[in-house]
């Protein structure tokens, strides 16, 4: 695989991992009695993502990698609805999709 293909594949993986870490942080607030546990798990997951993202940044320009990480808003919205049972309203979905599209355009012009 070319560095760019590898970088893009790792970036998608990063988006799901980061979404998962965000779920942990929200759980820490939702369940204050287990706050430390959730923050701990979320931090470890986030750290793993950070190392992986560093690899991505070594392969891709920040101007490509960072806007494409807009995928994280989609993965987090999905996980928020499924796991946290948040009401992701149509307005929120439209917003998330516009952000994804905008981020995609930012990446495509690199």
């Amino acid at each position, binding site marked *: 695989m070319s560095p760019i293909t590898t970088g893009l594949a790792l970036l998608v993986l990063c988006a799901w991992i980061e979404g998962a870490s*965000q*779920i942990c*942080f*929200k759980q*820490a*607030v*939702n*369940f*204050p*009695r287990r706050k430390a546990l959730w*923050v701990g798990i979320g*931090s470890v997951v*986030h750290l793993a993502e*950070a*190392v992986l*993202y*560093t*690899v991505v*940044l*070594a392969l891709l*320009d*920040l*101007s490509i990698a*960072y*806007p494409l990480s*807009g995928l*994280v*808003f989609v993965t*987090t*919205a999905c996980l*928020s*609805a499924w796991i*946290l*049972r*948040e*009401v*992701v*309203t149509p*307005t*929120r979905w*439209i*917003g*998330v*999709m*516009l*952000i*994804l*599209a*905008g*981020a*995609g*355009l*930012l*990446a*495509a*012009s*690199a």
Partner: protein
Amino acid sequence: MSSTPLTRSRLAVGLTTSILLDTLAQLVWKEAALRLPPLTAFADVVQTGLHQPLFIVLGLIFVLQLLVWLKVLEHADLSFAQPITALSYVAVCGLSVLWFGENLDARRLIGIALVLLGIWFVSRGSALTISSAEDKP
């Protein structure tokens, strides 16, 4: 759930701080990555990263970011607060042009416009759809 003006303004301050820290983190991260030697193995990334002071700075920014973020999540849904932080795209894009000399063309400007429109849509709804206080003592 309705939110008081005080909660709303705390949320705004929290989100703004998150966005600023996020922007700073991205720029420091790229700067740190640029200083890494050519990488051959995954282990090298971790090894070299630990010796680069900028990664320590990055770590401190992350800790601060986490503390602010947990405060934000006390007052808002994750699916509300997180998309708002996309504002840092706009900030990072602008600063990448200034700091790293990256290009800013018409397509990117449209991208920025769409991101801003998306954030506007997300900010229309209420910040909290479910009670986050159910497990509080």
